[in-house]
């Protein structure tokens, strides 16, 4: 005889089904006690301690509101949020994904316009010129707000122990930070040779096919190529991508292959991911890596602080181009589908407060958009202080959508192979002719831009390729964007 009766089985199934339904990611709900729950999505991992703390602070101040946070896997976040909206199960509040284009997200009805709440008085808490069409506004309506302060998003991380072991020090015994491409080469050589095979000079984890382009981004900017690896836009001086025609790209890739050939690079760099590379750097498997400020909280958690950082290593000691940022910014948005818009707005307002920004800085997560939140006296980590000191290398740059808001309607189609693919192909030797590969990539990207413009024109947008040319831009100076 069966140990479970049919009736028992059916009852259990019904209970399980009910339970699962209750667990599903539904939109905001209110409970009989009057507590309202705002569903929140983000892809924060190393930032998790900060966001959890913010939830606790917010819920204490707003006892009738609960934040139900779901952390999603970062590399699939755009797909997941898209599916959530398509399936009618979108969160009330979410971190804005990188794709589709921001105006597309607004056009699809994902984001709630915040103008009624984000009044001029509310906006005045931000630095002047923080709200622009195509950045945090679309068609004159506010959909998001800036959050982080500007600083180079990539740094060259130096393992102090390995540098000291290799004798790369200043006369006072401190680690000699590499400033030029040659400095990096010499340091990598010294570490590799003096470690007796136990460590390598350089390391990264390119399993996700992204980090090799970080190296390009960091090194070619210093050499004077302001578009970096070009995801944020072309070289606005000419309105084109210049991977093949600007020799800095080929020069750096040649240097990278030279490092590989000489055995300075950690051999399994293409097999491991960025998280693993971060752990291996901590363990002293290599002396130099490239990453962002997001590395620091994880290392702090592991009580690893024997490292330093610098940014923009250049062929000479003076960087010829920097990191750039658009005025304004966007990180979070309130879902148009939110059942509890007031509560979601309260959470949005909390995250964009000076106090939350201050805690963000104190947690070593990055800089805040609010200058008064970036209180250097509260910074205890010397590495985070080093990061803060690199602020001078981040400048505002031209934003075509500010000069001509109709540029927002241009969607540049994806190209394949793109820079991450081409770089991997060159690194592994699958692509032999570097010049041809880079020129073909340049052509693909520029054709994609032309196609995007053409498609927008066909839909009636008054745009042209000239909208992407800012002949007056000097990449060594802040650019003042002016609406047309």
């Amino acid at each position, binding site marked *: 005889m069966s140990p479970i009766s049919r009736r028992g089985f059916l009852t259990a199934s019904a209970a399980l089904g009910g339970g699962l339904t209750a667990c599903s990611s539904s939109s905001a709900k209110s409970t009989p006690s009057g507590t309202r729950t705002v569903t929140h999505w983000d892809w924060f991992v190393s930032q998790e301690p900060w966001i959890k703390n913010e939830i606790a602070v917010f819920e204490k101040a707003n006892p009738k509101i609960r934040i139900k946070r779901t952390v999603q896997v970062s590399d699939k976040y755009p797909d997941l949020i898209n599916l959530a909206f398509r399936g009618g199960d979108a969160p009330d509040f979410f971190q804005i994904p990188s*794709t589709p284009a921001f105006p597309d997200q607004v056009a*699809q009805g994902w984001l709630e316009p915040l103008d009624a709440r984000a009044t001029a008085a509310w906006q005045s808490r931000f630095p002047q010129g923080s709200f622009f069409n195509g950045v945090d506004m679309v068609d004159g309506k506010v959909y998001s707000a800036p959050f982080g302060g500007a600083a180079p998003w990539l740094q060259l991380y130096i393992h102090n122990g390995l540098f000291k072991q290799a004798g790369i020090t200043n006369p006072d015994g401190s680690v000699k930070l590499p400033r030029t491409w040659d400095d990096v080469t010499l340091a990598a050589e010294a570490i590799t040779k003096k470690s007796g095979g136990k460590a390598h000079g350089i390391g990264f984890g390119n399993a*996700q096919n992204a980090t090799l382009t970080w190296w390009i981004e960091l090194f070619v900017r210093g050499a004077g190529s302001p578009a970096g690896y070009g*995801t944020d836009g072309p070289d606005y001086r000419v309105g084109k991508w210049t991977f093949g025609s600007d020799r800095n790209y080929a020069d750096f890739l040649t240097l990278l292959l030279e490092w590989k050939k000489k055995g300075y690079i950690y051999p*399994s760099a*293409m*097999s491991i991911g960025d998280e693993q590379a971060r752990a291996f750097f901590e363990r002293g498997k290599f002396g130099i890596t490239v990453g962002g400020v997001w590395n620091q909280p994880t290392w702090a958690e592991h009580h690893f602080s024997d490292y330093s950082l610098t940014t923009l290593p250049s062929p000479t000691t003076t960087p010829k181009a920097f990191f750039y940022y658009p005025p304004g910014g966007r990180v979070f948005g309130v879902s148009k589908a939110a059942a509890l818009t007031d509560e979601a707005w309260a959470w949005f307002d909390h995250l964009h407060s000076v106090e939350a920004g201050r805690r963000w800085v104190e947690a070593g997560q990055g800089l805040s958009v609010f200058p008064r939140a970036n209180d250097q006296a509260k910074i205890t980590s010397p590495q985070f202080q080093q990061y803060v000191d690199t602020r001078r290398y981040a400048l505002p740059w031209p934003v075509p959508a500010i000069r001509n808001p109709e540029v927002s309607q241009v969607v540049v189609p994806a190209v394949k192979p*793109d820079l991450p693919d081409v770089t991997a192909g060159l*690194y*592994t030797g699958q692509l032999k002719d570097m010049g041809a590969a880079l020129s073909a990539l340049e052509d693909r990207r520029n054709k994609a831009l032309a196609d995007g413009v053409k498609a927008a024109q066909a839909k009636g947008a008054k745009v042209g390729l000239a909208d992407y040319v800012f002949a007056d831009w000097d990449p060594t100076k802040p650019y003042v964007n002016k609406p047309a």
Partner: protein
Amino acid sequence: MPLVDTAPSPPAHRGGSGPATAAPPPKAPLRTRLWAARWSYLYILPLLALLLTFVVYPIFGSLVYTFYRWNGIGEPSDFVGLDNFRQIAHDSIFWDSVAHTFVYAIVVVPVQLVIALALALVLNNKKLRFSAFYRTLFFLPVVTSPAVVGVVVQLMLSNFGDTFNSWLLDAHIIDTPVDWLGNPRIAMGIIILVGIWQTLGYNLVYFLAGLQTIPEEINEAARIDGAGPVRTFLHITVPMLRSVGLMIVILAFIGSFQVFDLVQVLTNGGPYFGTEVVNTYIYHLAFGGNQAAATQPDVGLASAASFFYGLLLIGFSVLQVLIFRSIAKRRAAGRG
């Protein structure tokens, strides 16, 4: 010459020269036959509903998208006709991914079938102790998610890759360290090895089932006639496994052509598309890049690639069936 004639006897009604057979009884009306088999239909109904919902509907549902350029957001509106199919047919990355898929299948299937048959023969030995334990052991990878297997293998290679390299360098097998998943050939080899190990259990079970249908008396008769294990295997086991074996081959090829999760997790199709198989190619088109390398997805192109590959597979399957039929006919003619 076979010791025992294992070929099936021709049915009495096959040839015109055979003895005359009685006319078949008249068929009952369709409605009566359907009603008589109502419980059978009822039992297959849930499976049929699932099949229609999750297989048939999506196939025809996505057919519409093949004619649009569409990033998956909102409703498709940019009609491009057959452009997506044209683009796929001219995309060298697509053809490379087809080649990688075929290499995977062509290596995995024969190697796996030989190992599975050998293991099945061992496990079918009634004198083997703990055979149930071994069967479970070999079947265990099948019930493990390929994604989990991929993650574990990736972690093993990243954490112990240096140690493997040290051993190989010390043994003078290699002279420079290997980037296990960074070299497309080695990465493909690892995917194939893991693929063989992970799905071996299926074929092992199929072969075991096939072996258990061979009557013991035939083997006994062969032994009495003086046949050794090799002759018994070649002249009794292999011919009697033929029909089961053909089905196993077809299923193994179909399974191998659908490889996806293992590749997606282990290499994401890289480096530089060196391990890209058709299903990861389609996936990357449909879902674009990631947060780090954000690109616009193209669901229309992905749907076209999916259909195109479907047509290729149908062609391949038809070819496979025709080849098997031709072999069977030639054998039948040889016997007759």
